């Protein structure tokens, strides 16, 4: 009885997973499903562009999930599936785009912004500390005058 309850609880937990509810695909085992979900999360939905393929309800996302699933079944590796997709939809479908000519700014842009910011801060701090030194000397002398 207890085993049955546990089984029911597990099944309902599995069924309530959002990705499963989206469109149940006939995975042959749990490992394949995990692999599929991991891959689908790395892929961008072209219709609602801030969603990944695993979560999107767009019809195109459903079609692409089906294609990814079929290619997995036919024995393609994740890498081959990604190439298949980028051949059609460009690097934009990948949430983790490869480092190449066109994506250099994407990869190093934040670092560049950080360096520019650090440079500005350094200049300001240097200038202020110099000003403080200059300001201090006359003030010190006035303090001495009061004494």
């Amino acid at each position: 009885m207890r085993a049955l309850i546990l089984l029911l609880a597990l099944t309902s937990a599995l069924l309530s997973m959002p990705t499963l509810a989206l469109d149940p695909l006939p995975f042959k085992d749990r490992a394949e499903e995990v692999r599929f979900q991991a891959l689908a999360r790395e892929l961008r939905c072209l219709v609602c562009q801030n969603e990944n393929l695993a979560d999107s309800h767009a019809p195109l996302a459903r079609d692409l999930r089906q294609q990814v699933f079929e290619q997995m079944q036919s024995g393609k590796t994740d890498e081959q599936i990604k190439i298949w997709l980028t051949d059609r939809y460009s690097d934009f479908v990948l949430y983790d785009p490869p480092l190449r000519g066109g994506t250099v700014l994407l990869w190093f842009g934040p670092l560049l912004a950080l360096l520019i910011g650090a440079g500005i801060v350094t200049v300001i701090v240097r200038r202020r500390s110099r000003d403080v030194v200059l300001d201090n000397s006359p003030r010190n002398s006035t303090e001495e005058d009061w004494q």
Partner: protein
Amino acid sequence: MKLSRLAPLIGFVLLLLLFGFALRWNMHNDAREVKSPLIGKPAPSYSLPVFGDSSDRRYGSADLQGQPYLLNVFASWCFACREEHPLLMAERARLGVALIGLNYKDEPADAQRWLAQYGDPYDTVIVDYDGRAAIDFGVYGAPETFLVDGAGVVRYKRIGPITPAVLQNELLPAIAAAKGGR
């Protein structure tokens, strides 16, 4: 006045310029547009059922080999296609190349009604009921229009409706180039 006093003003003006530029840029460009990796590459091969043909006739890239043509992805459920349609009807003659309609994930009866109501500008309409051929073309939102040259290479792609400006400034010159380039 010391230059450092002006720094906030200068920063503000720079930001203003940046935002103004971004606003202008967004008016003329669609940030959601995904550049097609197919341009300059051979179009995918496809062979699809001919719309409204009761026999099992199929039509596709092999039949179109040797001539430049436009492939226009449309559907009756697609609102922007309705927007584009009058232009295709009116400017059909000016295109100077075959216009192939790819009916994308549509119910045949709906497509039939749509073409009967608004007119059929296409030389041939082929049916991509499950959307697989469209995926090979990297279609993600109808309407999309591809210009394929005589060698079967994709020369130009328009995502979204063709407007009079796009027709004049992009599509017609691309067609001329595709015809001349043979």
